[in-house]
């Protein structure tokens, strides 16, 4: 009951023991209030029952004790509720009994005061929870609650009684009555309340049937005895008063065996029964007045109860101490066992040692035992025996603490390490009689130490490796098996200026150029997933240069024995410079080949093909090799382009003018093998047949620093003459200043041009010859006439000379005629010869009108034959023309012949030919006008084309040749149609002084 309501007070768990924790719960205070109300009420009833009739004071007044007990058990915060509830119960009870209100209130005040004082004092002195298995608690209880509280409250109580005039007894009587009543109550009731309120026994013991039986037996016996002694009315005054103490053994039994719980219960039973008996006139306390009887009974109970409570507390404490000691001992053993330690005590005299703990190190099982010294030494490893013995001896002899580490041979032959520490114990005689100490299996410790050392070494090595990694100029990183990079060397941070924390969880990707980022990260993931070595190029942010620099990243996995990847290690090397080198190389290549258009195109193609990948491997040699290889490859292509060029290219060193390189075309053109040419100067190869050419080239090179399309004459190494177009430029190749010269062979072209010129002359000549051919009839006629005359004259003269007399006048006339005719013939012949001449053009200053006259002479008979009438209109003030006489004659002659032919179909009267010369600008214009059929409009230009002719048997070359002649004189020739009929051919030639006709360049 009391325990239940105590449990309902919702006492905080911190204020109670662990056992009580389980029972205490926060319960609504109303329940608690109600419980105490009931308890108080019932307690009061019981108190009434135990009131001996004459006296107003109960022998044992439970309510106060209940209140005190509850206050002790409950939280301080709940006290007001408790008090209020008790008050209500008190009211109910006391008013029921018809006690005046004043008294009731007074009594409540004193009761409450008692309970409060007791509880407060207890709280002060003893930390809750109050336990009756501690001597200190019991002591405090006795003093504070049992003695002081009633002592003080009884004053109040008696005062109230006196105030209300309730009793006829004196103050002190009331006081003492109250005092003892309360003392007993508190003594008997509070312990049970507290013990059961705090969750029963503070010692947990498993329920055992024997114990329950014992308890039942005890209680039964006690009840019986108490009843018999005190309540059964069997007491006779002659009985031995010692029977009074009959319950005592049982109480002792309870105190010793059943702790505070049992003791308090038994005491309560004892008290209740004895009081009841006393009140009802049974038992030993029947002498004297009721008050006296009550007092002696109360004293008796007090004297029994207090020691018993103390005893039970002591017994509990002892038992606890014993248990605790055993606990400690047990824990110690456990510790020793766990730590593989055993303690030993060596009796020096008897050479025998006892040990306790774990001695498995020495092959001893169990928790304790004995071992002989010899056996001990057997177990010590042979190598350490001497040292062990020496240590022990030193310890005994010099009173030094013993401390030694040695090896112990195990049954399976392995060795374990032991550490033994001990100290000598001297006997009364001062000699060492015992050695005590502990021995520890330190094999693990040593292993741990060794491991620790290894770890230290490992750490050092790691630190060195880290230093190494940091010292490397490349970025070094490591990642776990999942690809999460967890280490970057110092270079990474130095280069990218990445915050240390930022690199984790692929934060390093932020250091990569956005364009490369995805590719790098994806490739990394792929490598990690597939377990393939990683190799990728990407641009990393370089904080130092504040730019992105190309890096080549390579990583390799590290596998364990099972082949699974445990770590990745990678490096990233700066290849930015290499990339720049390549780019510059490309630029240089393009510049180098700028001189040849075709070459440029091909090299541009090749350059585009040039691969941009330079792989750097861990050591720099491979990087260089790769760079070299790339250079060589591009060199190769350049070399191929160089070799395959259709123009001859030679590269000479600027410093000494020696040839460094020539291509195949050069070899062909200059008829020299490459090996023979390299290392020689151009002069040594005798390339300049003409020193003037050499000077020209040197001058051009000197003044401009380059040569562009300079036509020169050169000489091959075998002496073949070459006409070439030279371009040369200064370049820098591999740090050397060089000159790259290309020679385009135009020998053939020039030769062809020369051939053409020759052909043209031939053609012109043939044209002339053809013209002459056409005129041949007329020419023959021209010659035949004078010849005939000469012959006839001569023959006539011969006949005349036979006559007599001679007609000298006639003869003279004949001679004159002959001479004249001869001259005439000679002139014709020389003109013909002149036309037939196939020589080069010999330009001279020419009077155009004379040329016209010559041609007219030549064609006179032809014109007669054709029936053509000539009309001339020659200007008198013509400038001189610088031209070849014969070629001019050819042109005029051709035009006249053409004009005659154009008029061939005309009636005789219409065949008039007009030849005119005029001054036009600062030149001369010769026109030949016919009245023939004219030229069809579209053909005005095409008549000058070769193989265009209207003659059925003509070649059509005449006008073409004439035009080319006129062109070579820097003149113009064209045709126009006349208004009425016929065509006019115009030849315009520039005046002499400023007109030097362009000669063909071939001087050979």
């Amino acid at each position: 009951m009391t325990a239940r309501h105590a449990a309902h007070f919702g006492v905080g768990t911190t204020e109670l023991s662990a056992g009580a924790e389980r029972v205490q719960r926060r319960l609504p205070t109303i329940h608690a209030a109600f419980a105490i109300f009931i308890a108080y009420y019932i307690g009061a009833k019981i108190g009434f029952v135990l009131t001996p009739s004459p006296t107003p004071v109960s022998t044992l007044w439970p309510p106060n004790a209940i209140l005190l007990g509850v206050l002790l058990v409950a939280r301080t915060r709940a006290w007001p509720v408790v008090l209020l509830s008790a008050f209500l119960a008190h009211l109910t009870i006391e008013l029921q009994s018809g006690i005046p209100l004043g008294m009731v209130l007074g009594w409540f005040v004193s009761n409450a005061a008692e309970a409060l004082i007791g509880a407060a004092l207890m709280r002060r002195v003893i930390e809750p929870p109050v336990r009756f298995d501690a001597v200190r608690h019991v002591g405090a209880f006795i003093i504070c609650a049992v003695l002081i509280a009633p002592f003080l409250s009884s004053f109040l109580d008696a005062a109230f009684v006196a105030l209300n005039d309730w009793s006829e007894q004196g103050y002190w009587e009331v006081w003492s009555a109250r005092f003892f009543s309360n003392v007993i109550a508190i003594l008997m009731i509070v312990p049970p309340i507290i013990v059961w309120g705090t969750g029963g026994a503070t010692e947990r013991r498993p329920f055992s049937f024997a114990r329950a039986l014992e308890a039942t037996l005890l209680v039964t016996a006690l009840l019986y005895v108490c009843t018999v002694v005190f309540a059964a009315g069997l007491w006779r005054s002659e009985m031995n008063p010692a029977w009074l103490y009959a319950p005592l053994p049982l109480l002792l039994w309870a105190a010793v065996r059943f702790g505070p719980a049992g003791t308090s219960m038994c005491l309560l039973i004892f008290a209740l029964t004895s009081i009841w008996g006393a009140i009802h006139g049974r038992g030993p306390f029947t002498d004297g007045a009721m008050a006296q009887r009550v007092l002696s009974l109360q004293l008796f109970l007090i004297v029994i109860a207090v020691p018993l409570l103390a005893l039970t507390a002591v017994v509990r404490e002892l038992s606890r101490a014993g248990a605790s000691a055993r606990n400690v001992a047990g824990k110690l053993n456990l510790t020793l066992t766990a730590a593989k330690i055993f303690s030993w005590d060596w009796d020096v005299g008897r050479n025998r040692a006892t040990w306790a703990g774990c001695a498995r190190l020495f092959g001893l099982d169990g928790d304790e035992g004995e071992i002989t010294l010899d056996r001990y030494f057997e177990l010590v490893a042979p190598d350490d025996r001497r040292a062990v013995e020496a240590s022990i001896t030193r310890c005994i002899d010099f009173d030094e603490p013993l401390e030694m580490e040695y090896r112990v041979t195990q049954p399976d032959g392995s060795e374990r390490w032991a550490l033994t520490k001990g100290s000598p114990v001297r006997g009364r005689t001062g000699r060492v009689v015992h050695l005590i100490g502990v021995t520890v299996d330190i094999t693990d410790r040593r292993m741990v130490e060794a491991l620790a050392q290894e770890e230290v070494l490992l750490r050092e090595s790691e630190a060195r490796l880290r230093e190494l990694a940091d010292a490397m100029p490349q970025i070094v990183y490591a990642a776990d098996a999942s690809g999460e990079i967890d280490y970057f060397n110092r270079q990474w941070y130095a280069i990218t200026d990445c915050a240390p924390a930022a690199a984790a969880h692929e934060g390093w990707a932020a250091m990569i150029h956005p364009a490369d980022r995805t590719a790098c990260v994806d490739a990394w993931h792929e490598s990690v997933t597939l377990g393939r070595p990683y190799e990728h190029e990407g641009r990393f942010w370089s904080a130092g240069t504040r730019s992105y620099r190309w890096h080549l990243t390579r990583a390799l996995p590290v596998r364990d024995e099972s082949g699974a990847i445990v770590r990745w290690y990678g490096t990233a090397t700066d290849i930015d410079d290499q990339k720049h080198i390549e780019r510059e190389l490309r630029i240089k290549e393009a510049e180098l080949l700028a001189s040849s258009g075709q070459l440029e195109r091909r090299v541009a193609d090749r350059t585009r093909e040039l691969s941009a990948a330079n792989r750097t491997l861990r050591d720099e040699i491979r990087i260089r090799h790769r760079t070299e290889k790339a250079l060589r490859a591009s060199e190769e292509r350049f070399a191929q382009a160089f070799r395959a060029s259709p123009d001859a290219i030679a590269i000479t060193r600027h410093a000494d003018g020696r040839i460094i390189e020539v291509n195949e075309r050069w070899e062909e053109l200059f008829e020299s093998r490459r090996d023979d040419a390299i290392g020689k100067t151009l002069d040594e190869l005798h390339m300049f047949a003409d020193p003037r050419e050499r000077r020209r080239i040197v001058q051009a090179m000197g003044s401009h620093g380059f040569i562009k399309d300079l036509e020169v004459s050169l000489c091959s190494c075998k002496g073949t003459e070459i006409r070439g177009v030279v371009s040369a430029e200064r370049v820098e190749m591999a740090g050397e200043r060089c000159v790259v010269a290309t020679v385009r062979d135009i020998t053939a072209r020039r030769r062809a041009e020369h051939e053409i010129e020759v052909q043209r002359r031939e053609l012109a000549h043939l044209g002339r010859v053809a013209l002459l051919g056409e005129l041949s009839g007329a020419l023959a006629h021209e010659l035949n006439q004078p010849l005939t005359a000469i012959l006839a004259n001569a023959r006539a003269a011969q006949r005349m000379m036979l006559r007599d007399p001679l007609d000298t006048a006639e003869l003279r006339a004949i001679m004159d005629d002959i001479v004249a005719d001869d001259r005439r013939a000679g002139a014709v012949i020389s003109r013909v010869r002149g036309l037939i001449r196939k020589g080069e053009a010999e330009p001279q200053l020419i009077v155009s009108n004379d040329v016209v006259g010559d041609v007219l002479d030549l064609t006179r008979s032809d014109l007669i034959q054709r029936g053509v009438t000539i009309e001339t209109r020659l200007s008198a003030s013509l400038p001189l023309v610088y031209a070849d006489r014969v070629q001019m004659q050819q042109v005029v002659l051709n035009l006249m012949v053409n004009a005659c032919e154009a008029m061939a179909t005309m009636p005789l009267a219409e065949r008039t030919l007009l030849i005119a010369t005029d001054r036009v600008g600062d030149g001369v214009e010769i026109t030949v006008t016919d009245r023939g059929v004219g030229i069809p409009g579209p053909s005005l230009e095409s008549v000058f084309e070769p193989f265009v002719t209207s003659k059925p048997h003509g070649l059509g070359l005449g006008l073409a040749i004439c035009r080319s002649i006129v062109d070579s004189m820097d003149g113009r020739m064209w045709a126009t149609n006349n208004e009425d009929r016929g065509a006019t051919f115009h030849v315009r030639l520039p005046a002499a002084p400023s007109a030097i006709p362009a000669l063909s360049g071939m001087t050979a």
Partner: protein
Amino acid sequence: MSQELPIITVVDDDDSVRRALSRLLSASGYTVRTFASARELLADPSPDPDSPGCLLLDVRMPELDGLELQSILKGAGTGTAVVFMTGHGDVQTGVKAMKSGAVDFLLKPFSDEELLDAVNRALALDAETRAERRDLNELTRRAAKLTPREREVGALVVTGRLNKQIAAALGTSEKTIKVHRARVMAKMRATSLADLVRMMEYLDRVRAVGSPGGSASPPPGGFSGDLRATV
């Protein structure tokens, strides 16, 4: 027949050639007259066309060349014996000239022998041509005297038919035929049948050709009887 001295007519536009040729021919005993152009010749009141002589013409001349002149003269019936000369060696012209009946085609320069030879041949041809003409005239005169019937008979006689056959053909008697025949013989002054045949044939040929000479020249041996005698 007046026995005149043959005149050689030289036409050449080249002055010195003309002069030289004139000298040469004169020195060789010929009579020469020269003209500078064909026009001059035609304008010249020439002597009797029947007078003997030959022409020495240069082919190539302005305005009117030698060949054209020859054809004009031939048309006029005067220039029969022509010797051409030329400074060109033109085959075409030469062939044309020869085809038109020139005696020779001399290429300048030619020697005097060549010239004189050609001239003589030309003169001979000229004389021959004249004689031929005279003969032809005579024969024609004689033939003109024949009556148509006599002509018929004559034509048949020369086919070698017997009088009997001719009579039968013509439907007359043989006697009449004989008479006609005799008359024809007498008029034609043929001495023999063969002679008559030759004459008739000649006349026929001439008629066919249109002019004497060439294929219409009298048969070799001429005709018996001296035709000249009747002139």
